């Protein structure tokens, strides 16, 4: 009887120790897992920014002036993510109890990671006529922002892009001043409901900072045939000359197209 007591006690202690050992091991693994996940999330975001840059998609997202900011941030994020991993591994003994999988940690890491992964997988797309209708103030000829960034008066009319035409017209709107000017512009087609069926808008989005602030500008084109032959959102290169169209209540400038060629969407679809 007296001998069994210590042995029972010992067995209990042994079991207790084994339990603690397992718990510690589990905690260590959990700590390691969280550390890897934390670091991976930050690295994944840095890599996503660089992925957009290297894949040529950055031009769809932001104004080229801020390219370097995004690239720099991508590099710094990767370094930070690796730094967190390195620093946690080094000070392993000090921190484990600070790393609990709280609901906020789960939620925030989940959101960050899933958006980063979606960013790799989902395609980006240049904006089309849907957004143009959503964003335009009606006629595509007014500038949403007052101050033009570049403005060249001496430009040869044949070299003007859509945005140059719209800016010029905003400064000096008299249609007769441009009568007979040669036109060479490219943009995507918008079948505006306000136009007759033999006309469409040739349009481009203007970007100031990022895709969130794009707004469309465009010029009406008098087509050689019905606009159904020129599908909406397809990019075209339009050549022709400026004519003045008179309707009951206004006189406005229209491009009389002599040649309308479909072209592939440019890598950098915005005007600045």
């Amino acid at each position, binding site marked *: 009887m007296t001998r069994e007591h210590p042995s029972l006690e010992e067995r209990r202690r042994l079991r207790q120790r084994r339990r603690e050992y397992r718990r510690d091991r589990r905690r260590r693994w959990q700590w390691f897992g969280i550390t890897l996940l934390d670091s991976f999330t930050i690295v994944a975001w840095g890599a996503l920014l660089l992925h957009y840059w290297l894949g040529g998609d950055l031009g769809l997202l932001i104004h080229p002036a801020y390219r370097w900011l995004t690239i720099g941030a991508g590099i710094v994020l990767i370094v930070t993510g690796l730094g967190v991993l390195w620093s946690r591994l*080094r000070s392993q003994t000090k921190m484990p109890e600070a790393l609990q999988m709280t609901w906020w940690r789960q939620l925030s890491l989940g959101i960050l990671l899933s958006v980063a992964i979606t960013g790799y997988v989902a395609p980006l797309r240049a904006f089309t006529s849907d957004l143009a209708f959503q964003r335009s103030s009606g006629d595509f000829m007014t500038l949403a922002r007052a*101050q033009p960034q570049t403005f060249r008066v001496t430009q040869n009319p044949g070299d003007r892009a859509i945005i140059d035409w719209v800016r010029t017209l905003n400064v000096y709107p008299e249609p007769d001043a441009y009568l007979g000017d040669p036109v060479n512009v490219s943009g995507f087609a918008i079948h505006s409901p306000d136009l007759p069926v033999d006309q469409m808008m040739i349009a481009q989005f203007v970007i100031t900072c990022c895709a969130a602030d794009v707004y469309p500008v465009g010029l009406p084109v008098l087509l050689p045939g019905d606009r159904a032959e020129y599908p909406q959102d397809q990019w075209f290169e339009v050549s022709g000359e400026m004519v003045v169209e008179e309707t009951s209540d206004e006189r406005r400038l229209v491009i009389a197209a002599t040649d309308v060629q479909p072209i592939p969407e440019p890598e950098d679809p915005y005007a600045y």
Partner: protein
Amino acid sequence: MSSLLSAFTLFMSLLVEAFPFLLIGVLLSSALRFLVDERTFVRWLPQNPLAGALAGSTFGFLFPACECGNVPVARRLLIQGAPTSVAIGFLLAAPTVNPIVIWATWTAFRDQPEIVVLRVVFSLTISVAMALLFSSQKDLRALLQPSIANALPQTVTGSQQHPLLQGGTYVLGGTQLQTFERMAYQTAIAAEMAIPDELNERFHLFLENTFQELRDLGTVLILGSAIAATIQVFIPREIILSLGQGPVTSIVAMMVLAAVVSICSTVDSFFALSFAGTFTSGALLAFLVYGPMIDLKAIGMMLSVFKARTIFLMFLLITQFTFLGTLFVNFHLS
């Protein structure tokens, strides 16, 4: 499907443009947290309310903190004995009046420089006014949560009574208990503020702080960008325009949005930018001025310092100031 892709592209563009600014803000605030000791700083703060309000409101240039980083700093300033005007001025102005936020706002609104200038002017004016108003309250404790009030150094609490003249018994007196509590709290705050001497340890804390802020603020940024992209693409233009073109409704809508979305002030200008074509300038300004001072997230944090009553009063006054100021912009400046 097409509008879903547009929404995703818009969402990603907001994130890609805003992330660098978030990163710069987080890195700077983490670095300052472990490099600058505010205690040396509090000693030469002006005691005059107006000077204090102005000084506090421009401290953002020294501690560029967005509205998540500024509450802990303001709390530390208060406990270390900074005058009320300084602490309140800092609390309300620092998230807007600091170089990173001004740079980000300039990036977004290059074409409307008046928005950048008015954002700074309005934020400064409102913060200074609020700081002056609240510093007229002599006993600061009335405004604060009891735990913070107890931790205040005697000199700024306004209780000028000599300790021997205070009522109550000296054996189990409330004064004594309060002193113990205060000491305990001050120790806790000191521990929180402790900057480790060892460089390695300091770097470790810097990285941990950076990671944590990036994770938390990044998540809020993602949610905010998702809301902005959804509104932009899926809500019919007529609804947005009818709301956004009214001089009064546009301001109210943007102020409600600012309070709910809780997006960090470093990146909120990009959020506002996506409404630039459809909302009045006054409304955009209301979003940019109001959001950094009052939002759900910030109120949660401010409750750790101020009594609910104080915050409600602040909320009421700031709402009125912002509304009237931006209404003036809508009617007379644009």
